[in-house]
């Protein structure tokens, strides 16, 4: 299981702030996780189409190749705009 978090405009578009997910076979990186989520269709296709979406694994910014494994906390969000 991993913990998934969505923030800001992405959270609103998906209509869900968080979920627990059993990692399917073959999903072991941020990139493969994105493809898995995009395959849900509808508003989830943003995971395939957005070029600006950012990811963090265990609260550290992570690229597409970053490994994802059981127990991890994975977050997706738009570019940050604080300050």
């Amino acid at each position, binding site marked *: 299981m991993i913990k998934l978090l969505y923030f800001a405009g992405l959270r*609103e578009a998906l209509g869900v702030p968080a979920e627990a997910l059993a990692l399917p076979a073959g999903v072991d990186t941020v990139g493969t996780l994105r493809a898995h989520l995009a395959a849900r269709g509808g508003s989830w296709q943003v995971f395939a189409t957005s070029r600006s979406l950012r990811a963090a694994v265990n*609260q*550290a910014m992570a690229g597409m190749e970053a490994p994802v494994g059981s127990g991890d906390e994975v*977050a997706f969000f738009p570019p*940050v*705009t*604080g*300050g």
Partner: protein
Amino acid sequence: MSVSVQKADFDVGAEIAALSAGDDGAGAVASFVGLVRGAGIDAMTLEHYQGMTEKSLAEIVAEACHRWNLRRVRVIHRVGRLLPGERIVFVGVSSSHRRDAFAACEFVMDYLKTRAPFWKKEEGAAGAKWVDARESDDAAASRWEPGGG
């Protein structure tokens, strides 16, 4: 080296005083206050990623302490709903000499703007809208990278 993410406002004068209190080696305190601008908006709501936000701010401060000769650093960032004119963020840095304090203060703001997980949503006459990230903020942050600027 203290970082706070909070709903409450803060006392700028007290924060700046605390940066040099009891430290007679502190000759310079540079600080920054970011405010909600009123241009066409009624309010702004700041969302954040609790846990990662504090962690990323602490990392930014640690990096500043690594790059410059600093004595104390303080970062406060508010979350929740704020009105035009309200304070959003405070960054204060004390050092022996002003050059380090100025550089570190601006560095922390530039990195915070591009690396700390906060998101702004503006409420205006046309409804609510998430603020787009600005390319100028990426450019500002990249000035501090090797070969940047």
